[in-house]
């Protein structure tokens, strides 16, 4: 029997005075920071679009796309003067291209700067310590009230204090290292992303580990909802508008993140971009924001920082759930995308305060536990670091991270090199995800059941398989039990070898473990992914949802045992 390594306890804040928080300093100088972001982005874009013709071309593309956006996807949160602003840009563009240039002071660079400046003000967060504290109390209060009510099945229990969030959410892994390094350098937290709940959850984790608030790029769509907008603003969020895919916006966004990290603001982003649609751990990460961490590190070295001074540490985190509320929707989107090449418009399923309250309530009333695994901290190249922040190679020899940016003895800027490095970092993060991913009984029952079902029809492709009526897929419990035991032993062995983590409950008595898995896997869904019937058979009510939960164990080459 393996002992439970639950590390839950109360952590002292590492910086007690909120004045010292980098995020506070950033927001106190908000105006100046927006200015700096705009100027820096302007410089970067000028490198990419070096002459008048290419700038004008870019401006015209941007204008066109922005007009399309305003027409086709208007959002509540959009500024009132959006149309007016872009009309003005249009007129100015017409002006400067008309023959008589001498009577106007306007030029393409000024227009470019104005757009960038607007974007940078749009993106900037608006952190206020007082609001942060208030929000934190509300969240804590609200969560524990809900939790107590749901655990006791009596409404009056809402006023009890028997359970706290710590009982429900376990934080494990390299917590002490994270806390130590957060005092020495700048943390970039990169969690997996499965559910809309993740942002709230990770915010809570950061706070309960005694870390100062992190800045976080939140989808602008979340700001459509008043409550969420309030929370997000208080939590140090900056805004990411996924509708704007033009070069100017993307460069400004990257600059924002890069400069904030450079100024020592701990940051959080979901490197997978959006929630995992298939249910598997992210294999491919978005390189843009990761690249901004790498760039910030190079600039700090250029400014004369020595090896570990103000160093940037990348910390992978996995969020492990028994069920993901959105699973049926996500997997259907995934199958649609993979199955046919037609254009797919992303709908927002998470758009009203009512839905969110319902979601939170379900989360607490369905007693399903969550664990958070904090991975080992890495430098921006993906090398592990020790508790002093020194990077180590595979033989534990010290590496000076600065040396990666040197060429013939000097630090040089080489975009292509940094793109390669970002790819290496992304690989290291994905690798760490798989190592710290925590396997629950519910993941394992889903995987074993799906693989058994699939192996009985391995002559047809996945899409045809998923179309087989569910009732033809039942598995005798005896057969399932044998296979489950085999795979359980394999994953427990992999745990001992450090290739993944298994929950302590996986070491229990076989039938109990299976029962626990069946009770928990996707337990919220109207159509349950896996159940046992009176005929002693394992069956599914939704093969797609089962497929989703099965995917959590992708990437470990376990399929070959079927």
């Amino acid at each position, binding site marked *: 029997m393996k002992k439970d390594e639950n590390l839950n306890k109360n952590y002292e804040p590492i910086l007690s005075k909120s004045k010292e928080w980098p995020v506070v300093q950033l927001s106190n100088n908000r105006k100046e920071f927006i200015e700096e972001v705009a100027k820096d982005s302007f410089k970067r874009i000028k490198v990419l679009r070096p002459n008048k013709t290419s700038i004008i071309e870019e401006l015209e593309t941007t204008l066109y796309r922005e007009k399309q956006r305003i027409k086709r996807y208007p959002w509540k949160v959009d500024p009132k003067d959006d149309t007016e602003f872009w009309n003005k840009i249009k007129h100015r563009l017409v002006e400067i291209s008309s023959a008589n240039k001498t009577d106007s002071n306007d030029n393409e660079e000024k227009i470019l700067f104005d757009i960038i400046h607007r974007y940078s003000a749009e993106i900037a967060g608006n952190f206020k310590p007082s609001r942060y504290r208030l929000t934190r109390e509300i969240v804590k209060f609200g969560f524990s009230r809900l939790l107590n009510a749901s655990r006791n099945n009596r409404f009056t229990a809402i006023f009890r204090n028997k359970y706290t969030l710590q009982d429900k959410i376990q934080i494990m892994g390299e917590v002490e290292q994270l806390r130590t390094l957060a005092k020495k350098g700048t943390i970039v937290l990169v969690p997996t992303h499965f559910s809309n709940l993740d942002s709230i959850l990770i915010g809570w984790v950061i706070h309960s580990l005694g870390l100062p608030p992190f800045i976080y790029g939140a989808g602008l769509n979340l700001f459509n909802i008043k409550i969420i907008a309030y929370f997000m603003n208080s939590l140090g969020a900056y805004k990411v508008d996924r509708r704007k895919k033009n070069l100017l916006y993307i460069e400004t966004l990257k600059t924002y993140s890069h400069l904030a990290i450079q100024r020592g603001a701990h940051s959080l982003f979901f490197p997978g971009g959006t929630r995992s649609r298939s249910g598997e751990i992210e294999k491919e990460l978005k390189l843009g924001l990761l690249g901004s961490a790498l760039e910030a590190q190079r600039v700090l070295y250029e400014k004369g920082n020595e090896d570990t001074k103000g160093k940037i540490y990348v910390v992978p985190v996995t969020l492990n759930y028994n069920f993901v509320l959105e699973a049926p929707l996500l997997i259907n989107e995934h199958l649609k995308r993979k199955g046919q090449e037609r254009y797919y418009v992303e709908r927002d399923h998470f758009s009203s305060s009512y839905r969110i309250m319902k979601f939170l309530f379900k989360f607490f009333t369905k007693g399903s536990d969550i664990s958070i695994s904090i991975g080992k901290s890495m430098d921006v190249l993906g090398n592990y670091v020790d508790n002093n922040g020194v990077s180590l190679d595979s033989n534990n020899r010290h*590496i*000076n991270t600065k040396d990666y940016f040197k060429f013939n*003895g000097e630090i040089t800027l080489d975009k292509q090199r940094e793109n390669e490095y970002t790819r290496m970092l992304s690989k290291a993060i994905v690798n760490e995800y798989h190592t710290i991913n925590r396997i629950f009984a519910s993941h394992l029952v889903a995987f074993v059941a799906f693989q058994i079902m699939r192996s009985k029809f391995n002559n047809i492709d996945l899409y045809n398989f998923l179309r087989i009526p569910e009732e033809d897929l039942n598995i005798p419990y005896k057969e399932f039990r044998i296979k489950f035991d085999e795979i359980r032993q394999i994953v427990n062995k992999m745990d001992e070898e450090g290739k993944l983590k298994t929950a302590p409950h996986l070491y229990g008595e076989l039938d109990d473990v299976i029962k626990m898995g069946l009770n928990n896997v996707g337990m919220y869904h109207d159509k349950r992914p896996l159940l046992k019937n009176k005929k002693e058979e394992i069956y599914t009510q939704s093969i797609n949802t089962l497929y989703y939960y099965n995917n959590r164990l992708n990437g470990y080459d376990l399929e070959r045992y079927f």
Partner: protein
Amino acid sequence: MAMTSKDTFKKVGVIGTGSFGSTIANILAKNSHVIIYGRDADQIANMNSSRTHRGVKLHANIEPTNNLEYLANSCSTIFPIISSSGFRSVIKQLSPFLHPYHILIHGTKGLDISIPDNQKNNDTITRNEVKTMSEVITDETVVVRVGCLAGPNLAKELSDGQPGATVIASHFDEVRREGERLLRNDRFQVYGNEDLIGIELVGVLKNIIAIAAGALNGLGMGENARGLLVSRGMVEMIYLGKALGGNTQAFLGLAGIGDLVATCNSTLSRNFTVGHRLAKGETLNDITDSMDEIAEGVNTVRIVKKLADYYKVKAPITEILHKVLFEGFKAEEALQRLMRYPFNVDISFL
């Protein structure tokens, strides 16, 4: 700790004093100060006093050394040019002196094989156990900016000052640029390629066909047979290369067709010589004993045959060569078998 003054980095390192290593050192010496490392202290002393090596005059800019640490501390760009069988152990020795600022461009056309202890009895091998030289470097050191040299580079022609060219493959622009800056002169042309693994595999797999070409020559076959071999050999290389993680494009350039044509026609090639002497009836042991440098192709056939079995790639030339080299087959008999092999589609990889 390495020195950081800019001047020290004008020096370039070469590891290995074999024929290709010393040829590359001579080419590099036209543009830079070169430090060349050899394992054998006596040989280094001899090179220092006589200023010749393997019958070729050493360029005045070449400094032979027996000290790896000195070389690593003095040079930021290093060219390891060692046989594949000794590659990993030399890189291990070098590793403690390397830093992430180093650039390594190797010139070894072979594969490394390391089988974990628990699989020693297992006869099958997969790509996991087989590494290209760049993979050995990133396995064993902190260096990430890695590249390789490939192409028709017959050492003797190059040291005679005949025109030639090479491909430098790397994921990093700066490695390709630096390699070009260091190597290029008016008799030596340099091309860049981004597909590092592809180019390494091309160089490795080509050696198999070179042995076969030598064997055909030894059997007294003419140009038709060679044309047949070169084109079918190319198809086989592409299939194997794809199975091992390379792209088709790599095979069509200088490092692919260019090198294949050069080695399949040249008695200067060691691999060609092995094939030639086999066809004349000598045994593999006799041949390897009498050669002062290893023909990489022999080892490559051994490894690639197993990989082809595992990945179920049709590789008739490799298979038949394996029989000739290690299973006592006569070259004559092998040729007859190959001619009966049911080839039909000419080009099926594009």
